């Protein structure tokens, strides 16, 4: 089974971390619903050109978070994700992206106002592109 994980070999981000973030996003977003059978550790290692040690670590971490469960002899499956966990995960994925954006901003010596203006500009463009209306502040779920 193939799952849409794209690694950036040149990113300084550790490989296990890149895989973990993307796999978590696939599960939390519901793209991989409860009960989905994941590829074997060796299969995913081959697909991502990572070692089986890395993939085992990712499965272990996500199992500890309650997102995956392994049934002896049958394989690793997506576990049920409750709403609270989903919300927490949804938030942490965005926060992580924002942290790296903030890092880039601070490196370039931008002020908070400039950075916020950039974020607003990007949001406006993206929403225009997808035709999505702006969500008024304070009403986000």
């Amino acid at each position, binding site marked *: 089974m193939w799952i849409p994980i794209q690694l950036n*070999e*040149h*990113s*300084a981000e*550790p*490989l*296990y971390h890149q895989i973990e973030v993307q796999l978590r996003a696939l599960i939390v977003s519901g793209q991989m619903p409860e009960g989905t059978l994941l590829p*074997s550790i*060796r*299969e995913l*290692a*081959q697909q991502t*050109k*990572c*070692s*089986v*040690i*890395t993939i085992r670590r990712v499965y272990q971490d996500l199992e500890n978070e309650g997102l995956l469960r392994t049934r002896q002899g049958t394989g690793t499956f997506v576990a049920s994700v409750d709403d609270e966990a989903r919300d927490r995960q949804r938030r942490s994925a965005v926060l992580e992206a924002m942290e790296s954006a903030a890092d880039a901003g601070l*490196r370039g010596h931008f002020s908070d106002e400039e950075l916020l203006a950039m974020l607003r500009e990007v949001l406006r463009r993206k929403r225009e592109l997808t035709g999505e209306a702006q969500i008024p502040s304070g009403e986000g779920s």
Partner: protein
Amino acid sequence: MNDAAIAISGLVQRRANFELGPIELVIPRGYVTAVVGPNGSGKSSLFRLLLDLAKPDKGRIELLGERVGSGEDTALKARIGYVPEQSIDIEDGLRGSQKADFVRQWYPNWDVNLYQELLRRFEVDPALKLGKMSKGMRRKFDLALAIAHQPELLLLDEPSSGLDPIAWKMMIEVLHRYMDRNGRTIVMASHIIDEVKRLADYIVFVVQGKVLGMYEKDALLDGWQALYVDSGGGAAMDWTRMPGFLSATVSRGTTYKVVTADAPEAERWLAAEEANVRLISKQKLELDEILLFHIEQARGVL
């Protein structure tokens, strides 16, 4: 079941112009381990010692839990597949099919269907004499022979030498499929960086007859980074205190390129340093650059 596919201790082989060892090395079962090093570093000598094709002056080798060199080893060798670096010239006059007929007698687990399928996938004509096969075809034939008896341990010495890119891809696929069954082990010597990246779980560096370290591949590639750090022009930094420090050079002005083998710790160390020291960017090293560091280190030490 023993967890080591290969266990080597105190291994020394002395030759007039070359000394291998002393080597201490344990290669785990169930993984792909790449032995990486420059030409003449002793990789092929090591493989020959593993198979009892050469005798060590000292030390002990165990393959799949059995001691090598203790006499009758037909049963042990039936569990191993080996592709040597060079094909054997004296077989040039044999047809592929003749060699296969000879080889299969020694392997109770010989799987004729797997053998036929591998020949088909590799597009090898077994009716040809071995000496008339192209280098690539002969390599593929050797590989098919080494896998057809479903060995637990596959020893490959430069498996892709002579293969064109299509055959190379096919080989990677075949080796991936070989590993699908639990408990199987590949140990391969290679200096093709892409091949090591695609196949290996562990990497062993061998330089000038010595093992310089065994690493989990991704941890190695994640850990070794060049950090570009602006020292802020303050007091001279003692970069050697950085965790995993390997080298430091001036990149431009007050910016240094510092290479570390432990990037996460090095970053933490930098963050705890004075405020005017700033990490500008970081870059993972390529496997060949990491190998080069090991070679230079070995030369410095020896």
